[in-house]
């Protein structure tokens, strides 16, 4: 049988209030509660108090006190709830921190320049002087002094673009007092390699030499997956007494491991007119770890640069004594490095300048 005593009616009302309060989440909810329970006209606490007449006289005093306690408790609870709600409300000028930020437009450095800067930095740490040379050249600097006299069959290896009319080439080396800032003779072709700068440098600077020449070079190659008529090269030259092929090996191991991480390096004999002995340099394929895959044509190795010991005829052309000094030279293509490093399979992507490509390289 339900307890119908006045005390139990008070407790029922208290429990009811607690349940309603815990569901209230707005000021409006609290106002409704206030009205429902405490309103002088229609509040349920007020109504309960009015039932005092039905309570036996000896219990009226106690009943009145209990209802008053309930009323005070409800008032306190509502006040606290209002304060808590106010405290949880954002202050004036508050923002929605989940909205997106205002974008700072930022551009990207071209991946080939990114790679070029890395190569430059590696050689700078090795004490190389980094310098640029003209893009239009004359036959002497581009070919003849590099042991490629006219009609040399090796000229076929580098199909050349010639200018219809000679022009003055770019300046170089202005920062070095030793070198006149404009050593120009009419340029007749687009340089096929930055090796032309080897000649210009050695002709004006006594050994020892330790230089890296980055820049654009041009060949008469049609655009396809792996060829462009213009590409980016870094050419290096080290000359001194006692420079050996072993030094060349050591330099490339250091350089290529800084550039590609933990790779193995190997040299293969090759032929370039301006070096003897000549070597192609391979790194172990990172896609397969050297076991052979499509990237490395199942050889486990990837060709990365061409190099060799400077041909004595080149030293003779610049007035160095090949009996006294030896040296090594190398040329490394930035496209090749970037393609391997970033997994680019079409060289043309580098020259389309598609933002969807460029923006994949963080600044």
């Amino acid at each position: 049988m339900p307890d119908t005593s006045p005390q139990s009616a008070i407790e029922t009302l208290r429990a009811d209030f607690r349940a309603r309060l815990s569901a209230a989440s707005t000021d409006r909810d609290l106002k409704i509660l206030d009205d429902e329970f405490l309103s002088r006209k229609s509040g349920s606490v007020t109504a309960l108090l009015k039932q005092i007449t039905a309570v036996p006289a000896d219990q009226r005093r106690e009943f009145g006190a209990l209802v008053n306690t309930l009323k005070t408790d409800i008032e306190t609870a509502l006040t606290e709830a209002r304060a808590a709600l106010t405290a949880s409300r954002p202050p004036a000028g508050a923002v929605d921190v989940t909205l997106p930020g205002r974008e700072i437009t930022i551009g990207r450095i071209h991946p080939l320049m990114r790679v070029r800067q890395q190569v430059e930095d590696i050689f700078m740490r090795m004490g190389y002087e980094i310098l640029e040379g003209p893009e239009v050249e004359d036959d002497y600097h581009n070919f003849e002094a590099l042991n490629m006299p006219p009609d040399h069959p090796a000229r076929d290896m580098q199909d050349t673009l010639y200018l219809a009319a000679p022009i003055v080439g770019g300046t170089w080396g202005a920062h070095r007092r030793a070198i006149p800032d404009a050593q120009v003779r009419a340029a007749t072709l687009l340089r096929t390699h930055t090796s032309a700068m080897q000649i210009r440098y050695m002709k004006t600077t006594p050994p020892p030499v330790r230089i890296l020449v980055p820049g654009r070079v041009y060949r008469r190659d049609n655009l396809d997956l792996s060829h462009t008529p213009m590409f980016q090269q870094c050419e290096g030259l080290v000359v001194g007494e006692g420079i050996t092929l072993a030094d060349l090996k050591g330099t490339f191991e250091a350089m290529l491991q800084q550039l590609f991480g933990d790779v193995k390096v190997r040299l293969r004999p090759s032929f370039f007119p301006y070096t003897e002995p000549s070597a192609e340099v391979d790194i172990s394929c990172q896609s397969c770890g050297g076991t052979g895959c499509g990237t490395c044509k199942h050889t486990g190795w990837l060709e990365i640069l061409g190099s060799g010991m400077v041909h004595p005829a080149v030293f003779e052309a610049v007035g160095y004594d090949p009996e006294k000094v030896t040296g090594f030279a190398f040329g490394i293509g930035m496209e090749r490095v970037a393609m391997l490093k970033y997994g680019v399979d079409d060289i043309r992507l580098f020259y389309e300048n598609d933002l969807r490509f460029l923006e994949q390289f963080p600044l």
Partner: protein
Amino acid sequence: MKVLLSWLRELVDVKESAQQVAQKMSLRGFAVEGIEAIEDLSAEASATADAVLDFEVTANRPDCMSMVGMAREVAVAYGLPGPRLDHVRGAGPTASEAPRAGDPPAIQIIIDDPQLCPRYVGAVADVQVGPSPSWMQARLQAAGIRPISNIVDVTNYVLLELGHPMHAFDLARLAKAQIRVRPARAGETIKTLDGQTRTLSPDMLVIADGERPVAVAGVMGGAESEVSGTTRTIVLESAYFNPLSVRRTSKKLGLKTEASMRFERGADPAAAATAMARAIALIEEIGAGKARGAVIDEYPGKTAHRIMGLRREKIRGLLGGDVPEPDVTRILGGLGFELKPTSSGWDVTVPTRRVDVTREVDLIEEVARHYGYDRLPVTFPELDVPPQAPDPRIMRARHLRTILAAAGFSEALTFGFISEPAAAAFADAADLVPIANPLSENFAVLRPSVLPGLVDAIAHNRRREQRDIRLFEIGARFSRADGERRAIACAWTGAAAAEHWGGTARPVDFFDMKAVVDRVCDAIGVGIHTRPSDDAWLAPGRRAAVMLDGTRVGAVGQLAPALADSHGLVGSDPVYVAELDLDALEAAAAGRSLRVEPLPRYPSVTRDISILVDDTLAAADIRATITEAAPVFLVRVAEFDRYQGKGVPDGKVSLSLRLTFRSSDRTLTDAEVQGAMDAIMTALKNRHAAIQR
């Protein structure tokens, strides 16, 4: 050079697989472009697989464009004897190299120019023309040569085997039974074997009969003296021609053949006689005919053997490590060099086929190549001089790249050559530098400006759903007048401020682009100003020259809409561009050093002024008037509002400027500042009829 493995194995006793041989030889200087597995062609072998290895022979090694040449390399690489020539397939009784006494010569050979033809070996044979045996045809086909007839096939077989090009003429078609090696006469023509009639010039060497040319020496034979089914007697040619002469002729005629490729790189004069003997032996062996009369050997330009010293100390000096002497002698001996010991090393006699070996370093390369680069030590060059600073241009370009990237520009790289019409929009036609042998119309002239390429890149991106594009490039541009100069160029289309929930996007305008120019110049360390220009490639009213100390160093403005259209930007948002002469800016900045100025010690006073002036009056002129009229303590002038519309009469503009005054040695008084303001206003009224608002 396509090498049939079974054929190779006849010459040298190599047991390894095609893949193993390929790997080994690629580390000896012969990269393999591919291995093609085919059915075994040798009769002895059962159904085992044969293979063709396609070796890449570098331009300096014509001696390896042959089976014997490659076999020699393989033999040395594997430490095997060889190559064996004595018991190879098809080798019958070897014809004597010596003329056969008593036989009357069946042909007369005259060399007019011994410089261009140092040796000519000729022989006559009676033949029955027909197909060659199947084994010979199979070997030719494996090497990529089409079988034609037994006689032609023999010459091609010898070419493959020994590397020496040969040719056969039909004796009946040779006038006066004569072979004359002479320069072509001006205007002479010949129909070559490929069916083309070619006009010859006196710088070309020909083989002629008593009347007319019958072959282009070392390049291709003539169709009219070609061996045919009715040929009964042939003249075999095995000659040595000057490499340069063959190369020039081949280039001039645009005709590259198996023969010309070998002659222009350098054939072996000694092989001329061997090849002849081999060809005669093969003809007799396969029953194609029999030599008649003496082999004629005209050898007016006999080549002497080169002998050169090889020093032990130089081997170590170049390679950085010792190669044991037995290895040196084994390698060089195996390659056919003769070594005579000396106190410092060896005197080495070079075989005539090794046209590439002319110096001691060439011998050292041979040693290193077969000893193995991998067996040499690894060292690091000593740094014996202080490192030099890099070219400042490189570091400056890096700096500019960072600054422009931070300003929202991505770096583009475009080609140094563009189409003539694209170039002509940016420079006088007379100042363009055309390429003599361009790849295509699109790459016909050197770029006079970096902008055409950059605008193309903008168009490329626009076609791929990009609307807000900022690109820059640093690179060379070219003109006849000024040669090669470096430039920095920027292009910008679409929004200046990107769309955001907190505000609307604003399209790029002139002043956004001008700010970029200012920033670049600031970074280089030069002050520039702009003035209106009339460049046709920029839109009228929105174009300016960038001036540095009175010299034009660049341009900035909106790309002319018609020009944008021609780059495929029809209907696009305006494209703003700027290009600066980097060389000129750097030259102006050279030598400027950065010195810090003392911080101001006295407070500044700012006053605003609003004036009504003609709307055609340049802000720069107003600034100039203000600066001129003001005392030295005017330190800054800034336009902060420019208004036309309600309340401003037509043709006028309301301009508001904020002037900042500050002295370095005292606090300015109100009276001083007011005096300055009065002077400024008076000057503005007098010079520009300005009305103060």
